Protein backbone atom coordinates (compact mmCIF):
# COMPACT_ATOMS: atom_id res chain seq x y z
CA UNK A 1 0.00 0.00 0.00
CA UNK A 2 2.84 2.32 0.85
CA UNK A 3 3.94 2.34 -2.80
CA UNK A 4 0.85 4.25 -3.83
CA UNK A 5 2.21 7.39 -2.23
CA UNK A 6 4.74 9.21 -4.34
CA UNK A 7 8.18 9.47 -2.86
CA UNK A 8 8.15 13.26 -3.13
CA UNK A 9 5.11 13.35 -0.86
CA UNK A 10 6.96 11.11 1.56
CA UNK A 11 9.96 13.44 1.53
CA UNK A 12 7.71 16.45 2.01
CA UNK A 13 6.20 14.73 4.98
CA UNK A 14 9.60 14.01 6.49
CA UNK A 15 10.52 17.66 5.98
CA UNK A 16 7.36 19.03 7.55
CA UNK A 17 7.63 16.67 10.52
CA UNK A 18 11.22 17.80 11.05
CA UNK A 19 10.01 21.40 10.96
CA UNK A 20 7.27 20.64 13.49
CA UNK A 21 9.83 19.02 15.78
CA UNK A 22 12.12 22.03 15.43
CA UNK A 23 9.31 24.43 16.33
CA UNK A 24 8.37 22.19 19.25
CA UNK A 25 11.87 22.50 20.65
CA UNK A 26 12.09 26.21 19.81
CA UNK A 27 10.86 27.33 23.23
CA UNK A 28 13.87 25.66 24.89
CA UNK A 29 16.13 27.26 22.30
CA UNK A 30 14.65 30.71 22.94
CA UNK A 31 14.97 30.49 26.73
CA UNK A 32 18.63 29.52 26.35
CA UNK A 33 19.13 32.24 23.75
CA UNK A 34 17.64 34.85 26.07
CA UNK A 35 19.94 33.85 28.90
CA UNK A 36 22.96 33.58 26.59
CA UNK A 37 22.57 36.94 24.86
CA UNK A 38 21.71 38.87 28.02
CA UNK A 39 24.68 37.35 29.83
CA UNK A 40 26.97 37.67 26.82
CA UNK A 41 26.17 41.36 26.37
CA UNK A 42 27.38 42.07 29.89
CA UNK A 43 29.89 39.21 30.14
CA UNK A 44 33.06 41.30 30.14
CA UNK A 45 31.85 43.33 33.11
CA UNK A 46 30.14 40.45 34.91
CA UNK A 47 33.16 38.17 34.74
CA UNK A 48 36.03 40.63 35.24
CA UNK A 49 34.87 43.65 37.17
CA UNK A 50 31.65 42.79 38.95
CA UNK A 51 32.04 42.74 42.73
CA UNK A 52 29.19 40.39 43.65
CA UNK A 53 29.18 41.47 47.30
CA UNK A 54 28.85 45.10 46.28
CA UNK A 55 26.37 44.27 43.50
CA UNK A 56 23.94 42.52 45.84
CA UNK A 57 24.83 44.10 49.18
CA UNK A 58 25.40 47.81 48.57
CA UNK A 59 22.67 50.34 48.19
CA UNK A 60 24.92 52.69 46.28
CA UNK A 61 23.92 52.77 42.63
CA UNK A 62 26.15 55.48 41.15
CA UNK A 63 26.94 54.21 37.66
CA UNK A 64 27.61 57.70 36.28
CA UNK A 65 29.84 59.01 39.09
CA UNK A 66 33.05 60.37 37.60
CA UNK A 67 35.45 59.57 40.42
CA UNK A 68 33.98 56.45 41.96
CA UNK A 69 31.45 54.39 40.00
CA UNK A 70 29.47 52.04 42.24
CA UNK A 71 27.09 49.34 41.10
CA UNK A 72 25.10 48.28 44.18
CA UNK A 73 21.58 47.04 43.53
CA UNK A 74 20.35 46.70 47.12
CA UNK A 75 18.22 49.84 46.87
CA UNK A 76 16.78 48.62 43.57
CA UNK A 77 16.10 45.19 45.08
CA UNK A 78 14.41 46.94 48.01
CA UNK A 79 12.36 48.96 45.50
CA UNK A 80 11.24 45.80 43.72
CA UNK A 81 10.58 44.02 47.03
CA UNK A 82 8.57 46.88 48.54
CA UNK A 83 6.37 47.42 45.51
CA UNK A 84 5.89 43.66 45.03
CA UNK A 85 4.99 43.15 48.72
CA UNK A 86 2.39 45.91 48.66
CA UNK A 87 1.04 44.61 45.36
CA UNK A 88 0.65 41.14 46.85
CA UNK A 89 -1.04 42.49 50.00
CA UNK A 90 -3.68 43.81 47.61
CA UNK A 91 -3.69 41.15 44.93
CA UNK A 92 -3.67 37.97 47.04
CA UNK A 93 -6.88 38.59 49.04
CA UNK A 94 -8.63 40.16 46.05
CA UNK A 95 -7.41 37.51 43.60
CA UNK A 96 -8.06 34.45 45.75
CA UNK A 97 -11.38 35.88 46.97
CA UNK A 98 -12.55 36.48 43.43
CA UNK A 99 -11.29 33.03 42.38
CA UNK A 100 -13.32 31.38 45.17
CA UNK A 101 -16.38 33.51 44.39
CA UNK A 102 -16.27 32.82 40.66
CA UNK A 103 -15.49 29.14 41.04
CA UNK A 104 -17.76 28.21 43.96
CA UNK A 105 -20.55 30.78 44.32
CA UNK A 106 -21.52 31.65 40.76
CA UNK A 107 -22.74 29.75 37.73
CA UNK A 108 -24.11 30.29 34.27
CA UNK A 109 -23.87 33.70 32.66
CA UNK A 110 -22.72 35.45 35.85
CA UNK A 111 -19.67 33.19 35.96
CA UNK A 112 -18.94 33.66 32.27
CA UNK A 113 -19.25 37.44 32.39
CA UNK A 114 -17.07 37.72 35.50
CA UNK A 115 -14.41 35.68 33.71
CA UNK A 116 -14.64 38.06 30.74
CA UNK A 117 -14.20 41.05 33.10
CA UNK A 118 -11.08 39.45 34.58
CA UNK A 119 -9.76 38.74 31.09
CA UNK A 120 -10.34 42.35 30.04
CA UNK A 121 -8.61 43.56 33.20
CA UNK A 122 -5.62 41.43 32.18
CA UNK A 123 -5.68 42.93 28.70
CA UNK A 124 -5.09 46.54 29.79
CA UNK A 125 -1.58 47.36 28.51
CA UNK A 126 1.02 48.16 31.16
CA UNK A 127 1.70 51.60 29.68
CA UNK A 128 -1.97 52.45 30.17
CA UNK A 129 -1.71 51.34 33.82
CA UNK A 130 1.38 53.53 34.17
CA UNK A 131 -0.48 56.44 32.66
CA UNK A 132 -3.32 55.91 35.15
CA UNK A 133 -0.69 55.97 37.91
CA UNK A 134 0.57 59.33 36.71
CA UNK A 135 -2.66 61.01 35.65
CA UNK A 136 -5.18 59.70 38.18
CA UNK A 137 -3.52 58.07 41.21
CA UNK A 138 -0.78 60.70 41.58
CA UNK A 139 -3.07 63.66 42.38
CA UNK A 140 -5.35 61.44 44.47
CA UNK A 141 -2.45 60.27 46.66
CA UNK A 142 -1.08 63.79 47.04
CA UNK A 143 -4.49 64.99 48.18
CA UNK A 144 -5.36 62.07 50.49
CA UNK A 145 -2.01 61.75 52.26
CA UNK A 146 -0.71 65.27 51.90
CA UNK A 147 2.39 63.74 50.30
CA UNK A 148 4.93 65.85 48.39
CA UNK A 149 4.75 63.48 45.44
CA UNK A 150 2.20 60.84 44.50
CA UNK A 151 4.55 58.68 42.45
CA UNK A 152 5.72 56.22 45.10
CA UNK A 153 5.53 52.71 46.54
CA UNK A 154 1.83 53.12 47.31
CA UNK A 155 0.96 54.19 43.77
CA UNK A 156 3.08 51.49 42.12
CA UNK A 157 1.88 48.84 44.57
CA UNK A 158 -1.80 49.51 43.93
CA UNK A 159 -1.27 49.56 40.15
CA UNK A 160 0.83 46.39 40.23
CA UNK A 161 -1.66 44.72 42.57
CA UNK A 162 -4.50 45.31 40.13
CA UNK A 163 -2.28 44.08 37.29
CA UNK A 164 -1.43 40.85 39.14
CA UNK A 165 -5.00 40.06 40.18
CA UNK A 166 -6.12 38.51 36.86
CA UNK A 167 -3.34 35.91 36.80
CA UNK A 168 -4.03 34.95 40.44
CA UNK A 169 -7.77 34.67 39.70
CA UNK A 170 -7.38 32.53 36.59
CA UNK A 171 -4.71 30.15 37.99
CA UNK A 172 -6.51 30.03 41.34
CA UNK A 173 -9.80 29.20 39.68
CA UNK A 174 -8.10 26.42 37.71
CA UNK A 175 -6.73 25.04 40.97
CA UNK A 176 -10.19 25.03 42.59
CA UNK A 177 -11.76 23.51 39.49
CA UNK A 178 -9.23 20.68 39.66
CA UNK A 179 -10.62 19.54 43.04
CA UNK A 180 -13.04 16.68 42.31
CA UNK A 181 -16.73 17.41 42.87
CA UNK A 182 -16.97 14.37 45.14
CA UNK A 183 -15.00 16.35 47.77
CA UNK A 184 -17.64 19.09 47.70
CA UNK A 185 -20.52 16.61 47.72
CA UNK A 186 -19.07 14.72 50.68
CA UNK A 187 -18.61 17.92 52.64
CA UNK A 188 -22.12 19.25 51.89
CA UNK A 189 -23.61 15.85 52.74
CA UNK A 190 -21.94 16.07 56.15
CA UNK A 191 -23.93 19.23 56.76
CA UNK A 192 -21.16 21.75 56.11
CA UNK A 193 -22.09 25.06 54.57
CA UNK A 194 -20.55 26.05 51.24
CA UNK A 195 -18.21 28.48 52.97
CA UNK A 196 -17.09 25.78 55.42
CA UNK A 197 -16.50 23.54 52.41
CA UNK A 198 -14.35 26.24 50.85
CA UNK A 199 -12.00 26.80 53.72
CA UNK A 200 -12.02 23.36 55.34
CA UNK A 201 -12.00 21.18 52.20
CA UNK A 202 -11.17 23.12 49.05
CA UNK A 203 -8.35 25.28 50.44
CA UNK A 204 -6.35 22.30 51.76
CA UNK A 205 -7.08 20.23 48.65
CA UNK A 206 -6.10 22.99 46.22
CA UNK A 207 -3.28 24.32 48.39
CA UNK A 208 -0.39 23.84 45.97
CA UNK A 209 -2.35 25.21 43.01
CA UNK A 210 -3.38 28.30 44.96
CA UNK A 211 0.21 28.81 46.11
CA UNK A 212 1.31 28.56 42.48
CA UNK A 213 -1.25 31.23 41.57
CA UNK A 214 0.22 33.56 44.18
CA UNK A 215 3.78 32.84 43.02
CA UNK A 216 2.90 33.59 39.40
CA UNK A 217 1.38 36.85 40.61
CA UNK A 218 4.68 37.60 42.38
CA UNK A 219 6.64 36.82 39.21
CA UNK A 220 4.37 39.13 37.25
CA UNK A 221 4.90 41.92 39.79
CA UNK A 222 8.69 41.50 39.85
CA UNK A 223 8.90 41.55 36.07
CA UNK A 224 6.54 44.41 35.29
CA UNK A 225 8.47 47.30 33.82
CA UNK A 226 6.72 50.25 32.21
CA UNK A 227 3.91 50.64 34.73
CA UNK A 228 6.29 50.76 37.71
CA UNK A 229 8.71 52.96 35.82
CA UNK A 230 5.93 55.50 35.41
CA UNK A 231 4.18 55.12 38.77
CA UNK A 232 6.92 54.77 41.42
CA UNK A 233 8.94 57.92 40.88
CA UNK A 234 12.67 57.89 40.20
CA UNK A 235 14.43 57.71 43.53
CA UNK A 236 17.10 55.07 44.05
CA UNK A 237 16.67 54.56 47.79
CA UNK A 238 15.52 52.04 50.35
CA UNK A 239 11.95 53.14 51.16
CA UNK A 240 10.96 53.81 54.78
CA UNK A 241 7.27 54.40 54.15
CA UNK A 242 4.81 53.62 51.38
CA UNK A 243 4.90 57.29 50.46
CA UNK A 244 8.61 57.17 49.52
CA UNK A 245 9.54 57.07 45.87
CA UNK A 246 11.61 54.09 44.75
CA UNK A 247 13.02 52.56 41.62
CA UNK A 248 12.79 48.88 40.80
CA UNK A 249 15.29 46.62 39.01
CA UNK A 250 13.20 46.56 35.85
CA UNK A 251 12.58 50.32 35.82
CA UNK A 252 16.31 50.99 36.20
CA UNK A 253 17.09 49.08 33.03
CA UNK A 254 14.31 50.82 31.11
CA UNK A 255 15.29 54.26 32.39
CA UNK A 256 19.02 54.03 31.86
CA UNK A 257 19.67 51.74 28.88
CA UNK A 258 18.93 54.46 26.36
CA UNK A 259 21.38 56.87 27.95
CA UNK A 260 24.45 54.68 28.29
CA UNK A 261 27.28 54.21 25.84
CA UNK A 262 27.13 50.76 24.25
CA UNK A 263 29.70 48.45 25.85
CA UNK A 264 30.46 50.73 28.81
CA UNK A 265 30.52 49.30 32.32
CA UNK A 266 27.24 51.03 33.07
CA UNK A 267 25.65 49.47 29.98
CA UNK A 268 26.94 46.04 30.94
CA UNK A 269 25.84 46.50 34.55
CA UNK A 270 22.28 46.92 33.27
CA UNK A 271 22.62 43.56 31.51
CA UNK A 272 23.89 42.14 34.81
CA UNK A 273 20.63 43.33 36.39
CA UNK A 274 18.88 41.58 33.50
CA UNK A 275 20.65 38.32 34.40
CA UNK A 276 19.61 38.80 38.04
CA UNK A 277 15.98 39.36 36.99
CA UNK A 278 16.12 36.33 34.71
CA UNK A 279 17.24 34.15 37.62
CA UNK A 280 14.71 35.62 40.05
CA UNK A 281 11.72 35.03 37.78
CA UNK A 282 13.12 31.69 36.57
CA UNK A 283 13.20 30.38 40.15
CA UNK A 284 9.73 31.68 41.03
CA UNK A 285 8.28 30.23 37.82
CA UNK A 286 10.06 26.91 38.36
CA UNK A 287 8.63 26.55 41.87
CA UNK A 288 5.16 27.53 40.63
CA UNK A 289 5.38 24.99 37.82
CA UNK A 290 6.39 22.21 40.24
CA UNK A 291 3.44 23.14 42.49
CA UNK A 292 0.99 23.09 39.56
CA UNK A 293 2.34 19.70 38.50
CA UNK A 294 1.94 18.38 42.04
CA UNK A 295 -1.64 19.63 42.26
CA UNK A 296 -2.49 17.99 38.93
CA UNK A 297 -1.01 14.66 40.01
CA UNK A 298 -3.44 14.51 42.91
Amino acid at each position, binding site marked *: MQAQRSSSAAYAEIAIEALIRLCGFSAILFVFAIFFFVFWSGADFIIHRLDLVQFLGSEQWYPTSISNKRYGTLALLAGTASVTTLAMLIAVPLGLGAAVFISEFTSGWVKESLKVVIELLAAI*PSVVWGFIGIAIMNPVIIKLFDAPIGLNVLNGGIILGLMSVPIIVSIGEDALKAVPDSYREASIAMGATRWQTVYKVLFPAARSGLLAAVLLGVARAIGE*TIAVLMATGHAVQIPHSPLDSVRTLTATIAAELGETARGSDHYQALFAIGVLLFFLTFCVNLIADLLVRESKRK
Partner: protein
Amino acid sequence: MSAVREQSHAVFQATAVTLANRSRERFAVRVLTLITTLLILPLIAIISLLVAKGAPAMSLEFLLAAPVAGMTAGGIFPAIVGTLWLVGVSLAVAAPIGILAAVYLNEYAGDNWVTRIINLAIVNLAGVPSIVHALFGVGAFVLFLGMGTSILSASLTLAIMTLPVIIASTKEALASVPLAFREACWVLGASRWQTIRHVVLPNSISGILTGVILQVSRAAGETAPIMFTGAAFYLPFLPQSVYDQCMALSMHLFTVSTQVPNVPEAIPYATALVLLGLVMSVNLTSILFRSYLRSRRKW
Protein backbone atom coordinates in the same frame (compact mmCIF):
# COMPACT_ATOMS: atom_id res chain seq x y z
CA MET B 1 -52.68 20.59 59.53
CA SER B 2 -51.17 22.85 62.13
CA ALA B 3 -50.04 19.78 64.06
CA VAL B 4 -48.12 18.59 61.02
CA ARG B 5 -46.53 21.97 60.55
CA GLU B 6 -45.55 22.17 64.18
CA GLN B 7 -44.08 18.73 64.03
CA SER B 8 -42.06 19.47 60.91
CA HIS B 9 -40.99 22.69 62.53
CA ALA B 10 -39.74 20.69 65.45
CA VAL B 11 -37.86 18.26 63.19
CA PHE B 12 -36.09 20.93 61.13
CA GLN B 13 -35.43 23.33 63.97
CA ALA B 14 -32.00 24.81 63.32
CA THR B 15 -29.60 24.58 66.22
CA ALA B 16 -27.57 27.55 67.35
CA VAL B 17 -24.51 26.08 65.62
CA THR B 18 -26.32 25.80 62.29
CA LEU B 19 -27.61 29.33 62.57
CA ALA B 20 -24.14 30.63 63.35
CA ASN B 21 -22.73 28.71 60.39
CA ARG B 22 -25.42 30.09 58.14
CA SER B 23 -24.82 33.67 59.19
CA ARG B 24 -21.08 33.13 58.78
CA GLU B 25 -21.74 31.84 55.28
CA ARG B 26 -23.89 34.85 54.46
CA PHE B 27 -21.13 37.12 55.71
CA ALA B 28 -18.48 35.27 53.67
CA VAL B 29 -20.55 35.47 50.50
CA ARG B 30 -21.08 39.17 51.08
CA VAL B 31 -17.34 39.76 51.49
CA LEU B 32 -16.55 37.70 48.38
CA THR B 33 -19.15 39.59 46.37
CA LEU B 34 -17.64 42.85 47.57
CA ILE B 35 -14.15 41.70 46.56
CA THR B 36 -15.28 40.71 43.10
CA THR B 37 -17.12 44.01 42.67
CA LEU B 38 -13.92 45.78 43.71
CA LEU B 39 -12.28 44.20 40.67
CA ILE B 40 -14.99 45.25 38.24
CA LEU B 41 -14.96 48.85 39.49
CA PRO B 42 -11.44 49.80 38.34
CA LEU B 43 -12.14 48.40 34.89
CA ILE B 44 -15.27 50.51 34.56
CA ALA B 45 -13.60 53.53 36.20
CA ILE B 46 -10.56 53.37 33.93
CA ILE B 47 -12.57 53.01 30.74
CA SER B 48 -15.03 55.75 31.61
CA LEU B 49 -12.31 58.18 32.76
CA LEU B 50 -10.31 57.65 29.59
CA VAL B 51 -13.43 58.09 27.48
CA ALA B 52 -14.51 61.22 29.38
CA LYS B 53 -11.16 62.94 29.28
CA GLY B 54 -9.94 61.64 25.92
CA ALA B 55 -13.11 62.13 23.90
CA PRO B 56 -12.74 65.93 23.53
CA ALA B 57 -9.43 65.49 21.70
CA MET B 58 -10.70 62.59 19.64
CA SER B 59 -11.40 63.39 16.03
CA LEU B 60 -10.69 62.00 12.62
CA GLU B 61 -7.90 64.53 12.37
CA PHE B 62 -6.33 63.26 15.62
CA LEU B 63 -6.29 59.74 14.15
CA LEU B 64 -5.04 60.75 10.71
CA ALA B 65 -2.56 63.56 11.39
CA ALA B 66 1.07 63.45 12.50
CA PRO B 67 2.14 64.98 15.80
CA VAL B 68 3.39 68.56 15.43
CA ALA B 69 5.00 71.24 17.60
CA GLY B 70 7.20 68.83 19.57
CA MET B 71 4.29 66.40 20.03
CA THR B 72 2.23 68.97 21.95
CA ALA B 73 -0.33 69.13 19.15
CA GLY B 74 -1.50 67.22 16.11
CA GLY B 75 -2.44 63.54 15.89
CA ILE B 76 -1.12 60.03 16.27
CA PHE B 77 -1.26 58.64 12.74
CA PRO B 78 2.41 57.53 12.55
CA ALA B 79 2.03 55.74 15.89
CA ILE B 80 -1.01 53.83 14.64
CA VAL B 81 0.80 52.86 11.43
CA GLY B 82 3.87 51.79 13.43
CA THR B 83 1.81 49.61 15.78
CA LEU B 84 0.21 47.92 12.76
CA TRP B 85 3.68 47.22 11.29
CA LEU B 86 4.97 45.77 14.59
CA VAL B 87 1.88 43.64 15.16
CA GLY B 88 1.80 42.41 11.56
CA VAL B 89 5.45 41.38 11.36
CA SER B 90 5.50 39.80 14.82
CA LEU B 91 2.34 37.88 13.96
CA ALA B 92 3.88 36.61 10.71
CA VAL B 93 6.79 35.19 12.73
CA ALA B 94 5.04 34.01 15.89
CA ALA B 95 1.94 32.39 14.34
CA PRO B 96 3.63 29.66 12.25
CA ILE B 97 6.23 28.82 14.92
CA GLY B 98 3.65 28.84 17.71
CA ILE B 99 1.10 26.75 15.83
CA LEU B 100 3.66 24.15 14.74
CA ALA B 101 5.08 24.03 18.29
CA ALA B 102 1.59 23.33 19.62
CA VAL B 103 1.08 20.65 16.92
CA TYR B 104 4.29 19.01 18.11
CA LEU B 105 3.27 19.14 21.77
CA ASN B 106 -0.26 17.88 21.18
CA GLU B 107 0.22 15.40 18.32
CA TYR B 108 3.79 14.13 18.48
CA ALA B 109 5.30 14.60 21.93
CA GLY B 110 5.15 11.69 24.34
CA ASP B 111 4.63 12.03 28.05
CA ASN B 112 8.31 12.14 28.97
CA TRP B 113 10.99 14.40 30.43
CA VAL B 114 11.71 16.10 27.10
CA THR B 115 8.12 17.28 26.89
CA ARG B 116 8.28 18.40 30.51
CA ILE B 117 11.31 20.53 29.75
CA ILE B 118 9.61 22.05 26.70
CA ASN B 119 6.57 22.95 28.78
CA LEU B 120 8.78 24.39 31.49
CA ALA B 121 10.58 26.45 28.84
CA ILE B 122 7.25 27.81 27.58
CA VAL B 123 6.18 28.76 31.12
CA ASN B 124 9.50 30.55 31.56
CA LEU B 125 9.30 32.27 28.21
CA ALA B 126 5.99 33.71 29.38
CA GLY B 127 7.48 34.57 32.77
CA VAL B 128 10.66 36.34 31.70
CA PRO B 129 10.21 40.07 32.45
CA SER B 130 9.44 42.16 29.38
CA ILE B 131 12.52 44.32 29.93
CA VAL B 132 14.72 41.20 29.86
CA HIS B 133 13.12 40.34 26.51
CA ALA B 134 14.14 43.85 25.48
CA LEU B 135 17.75 43.23 26.57
CA PHE B 136 17.69 40.00 24.59
CA GLY B 137 16.36 41.84 21.55
CA VAL B 138 19.14 44.40 21.82
CA GLY B 139 21.86 41.77 22.29
CA ALA B 140 20.62 39.27 19.70
CA PHE B 141 18.78 41.14 16.94
CA VAL B 142 19.96 44.74 17.08
CA LEU B 143 23.66 43.99 17.67
CA PHE B 144 24.60 40.35 17.03
CA LEU B 145 22.50 39.84 13.90
CA GLY B 146 23.11 43.43 12.84
CA MET B 147 19.48 44.31 12.22
CA GLY B 148 19.90 47.63 14.02
CA THR B 149 17.01 49.36 15.74
CA SER B 150 14.31 48.48 13.25
CA ILE B 151 10.78 47.19 12.92
CA LEU B 152 12.33 43.77 12.27
CA SER B 153 14.26 43.69 15.57
CA ALA B 154 11.31 44.96 17.57
CA SER B 155 8.87 42.56 15.92
CA LEU B 156 11.11 39.53 16.44
CA THR B 157 11.45 40.46 20.13
CA LEU B 158 7.67 40.81 20.38
CA ALA B 159 7.18 37.52 18.52
CA ILE B 160 9.31 35.52 20.96
CA MET B 161 7.64 37.21 23.90
CA THR B 162 4.11 36.44 22.70
CA LEU B 163 4.86 32.91 21.47
CA PRO B 164 3.50 31.27 24.67
CA VAL B 165 0.08 32.88 24.07
CA ILE B 166 -0.25 31.24 20.66
CA ILE B 167 1.16 27.89 21.83
CA ALA B 168 -1.21 27.70 24.81
CA SER B 169 -4.41 28.47 22.93
CA THR B 170 -3.49 26.37 19.89
CA LYS B 171 -2.76 23.42 22.19
CA GLU B 172 -6.19 23.84 23.74
CA ALA B 173 -7.82 24.00 20.29
CA LEU B 174 -6.01 20.87 19.09
CA ALA B 175 -6.79 18.97 22.29
CA SER B 176 -10.50 19.66 21.83
CA VAL B 177 -10.54 17.59 18.62
CA PRO B 178 -11.64 14.11 19.78
CA LEU B 179 -9.14 11.26 19.46
CA ALA B 180 -11.80 9.29 17.53
CA PHE B 181 -11.43 11.72 14.59
CA ARG B 182 -7.72 10.87 14.38
CA GLU B 183 -8.27 7.14 14.83
CA ALA B 184 -10.83 7.09 12.03
CA CYS B 185 -8.31 8.75 9.78
CA TRP B 186 -5.42 6.46 10.76
CA VAL B 187 -7.58 3.40 10.16
CA LEU B 188 -8.10 4.61 6.58
CA GLY B 189 -4.33 4.47 6.13
CA ALA B 190 -3.55 8.15 6.45
CA SER B 191 -0.20 9.08 7.88
CA ARG B 192 0.22 11.17 10.97
CA TRP B 193 0.86 14.41 9.05
CA GLN B 194 -2.02 13.73 6.62
CA THR B 195 -4.31 13.30 9.60
CA ILE B 196 -3.13 16.57 11.11
CA ARG B 197 -3.31 18.42 7.80
CA HIS B 198 -6.74 17.20 6.70
CA VAL B 199 -8.59 16.41 9.93
CA VAL B 200 -7.07 17.96 13.05
CA LEU B 201 -6.17 21.42 11.74
CA PRO B 202 -9.41 22.07 9.79
CA ASN B 203 -11.41 21.07 12.88
CA SER B 204 -9.49 23.37 15.19
CA ILE B 205 -8.71 26.29 12.89
CA SER B 206 -11.17 28.65 14.56
CA GLY B 207 -9.79 27.89 18.01
CA ILE B 208 -6.29 28.54 16.69
CA LEU B 209 -7.49 31.83 15.26
CA THR B 210 -8.67 32.89 18.74
CA GLY B 211 -5.14 32.46 20.06
CA VAL B 212 -3.70 34.40 17.15
CA ILE B 213 -6.10 37.28 17.85
CA LEU B 214 -5.01 37.26 21.50
CA GLN B 215 -1.38 37.49 20.39
CA VAL B 216 -2.25 40.58 18.39
CA SER B 217 -3.77 42.32 21.41
CA ARG B 218 -0.78 41.42 23.57
CA ALA B 219 1.77 42.59 20.99
CA ALA B 220 -0.07 45.87 20.40
CA GLY B 221 0.05 46.83 24.06
CA GLU B 222 3.69 46.08 24.90
CA THR B 223 6.12 48.92 25.41
CA ALA B 224 9.30 47.71 27.12
CA PRO B 225 10.36 45.16 24.46
CA ILE B 226 10.15 47.69 21.62
CA MET B 227 11.68 50.69 23.43
CA PHE B 228 15.28 49.90 22.57
CA THR B 229 14.81 47.61 19.61
CA GLY B 230 12.85 49.63 17.08
CA ALA B 231 10.31 52.08 18.42
CA ALA B 232 11.26 55.73 18.15
CA PHE B 233 10.11 58.69 20.24
CA TYR B 234 9.35 60.70 17.16
CA LEU B 235 9.81 60.17 13.43
CA PRO B 236 8.96 62.74 10.80
CA PHE B 237 8.21 60.04 8.20
CA LEU B 238 6.31 56.78 7.96
CA PRO B 239 8.31 53.52 7.83
CA GLN B 240 8.92 52.21 4.31
CA SER B 241 10.29 48.76 5.13
CA VAL B 242 11.02 46.45 8.06
CA TYR B 243 14.51 47.93 8.29
CA ASP B 244 13.14 51.36 9.30
CA GLN B 245 12.30 52.43 12.82
CA CYS B 246 8.72 53.30 13.62
CA MET B 247 6.59 55.06 16.18
CA ALA B 248 4.12 52.98 18.20
CA LEU B 249 0.96 53.78 20.14
CA SER B 250 2.24 52.34 23.42
CA MET B 251 5.59 54.08 23.07
CA HIS B 252 3.86 57.32 22.10
CA LEU B 253 1.68 57.22 25.23
CA PHE B 254 4.81 56.68 27.33
CA THR B 255 6.55 59.58 25.59
CA VAL B 256 3.77 62.15 25.82
CA SER B 257 2.96 61.30 29.42
CA THR B 258 6.52 61.24 30.80
CA GLN B 259 9.12 62.65 28.42
CA VAL B 260 7.61 65.72 26.78
CA PRO B 261 6.79 68.83 28.82
CA ASN B 262 3.68 70.97 28.31
CA VAL B 263 1.54 68.42 26.51
CA PRO B 264 -2.15 69.38 26.71
CA GLU B 265 -3.88 66.90 29.02
CA ALA B 266 -6.28 65.64 26.37
CA ILE B 267 -3.52 64.25 24.11
CA PRO B 268 -2.23 61.47 26.40
CA TYR B 269 -5.81 60.65 27.43
CA ALA B 270 -6.91 60.34 23.82
CA THR B 271 -3.79 58.27 22.96
CA ALA B 272 -4.50 55.97 25.91
CA LEU B 273 -8.11 55.71 24.79
CA VAL B 274 -7.10 54.69 21.24
CA LEU B 275 -4.60 52.11 22.54
CA LEU B 276 -7.03 50.70 25.10
CA GLY B 277 -9.85 50.71 22.55
CA LEU B 278 -7.71 48.80 20.06
CA VAL B 279 -6.55 46.19 22.59
CA MET B 280 -9.97 45.77 24.19
CA SER B 281 -11.87 45.41 20.94
CA VAL B 282 -9.38 42.83 19.66
CA ASN B 283 -9.65 40.98 22.96
CA LEU B 284 -13.41 41.13 23.07
CA THR B 285 -13.56 39.81 19.48
CA SER B 286 -11.45 36.87 20.54
CA ILE B 287 -13.60 36.21 23.63
CA LEU B 288 -16.91 36.41 21.73
CA PHE B 289 -15.52 34.29 18.91
CA ARG B 290 -14.43 31.65 21.43
CA SER B 291 -17.77 31.49 23.22
CA TYR B 292 -19.55 31.26 19.85
CA LEU B 293 -17.31 28.34 18.90
CA ARG B 294 -17.91 26.57 22.20
CA SER B 295 -21.67 26.89 21.84
CA ARG B 296 -21.52 25.58 18.27
CA ARG B 297 -19.25 22.62 18.88
CA LYS B 298 -21.03 19.40 17.97
CA TRP B 299 -18.80 16.93 19.79
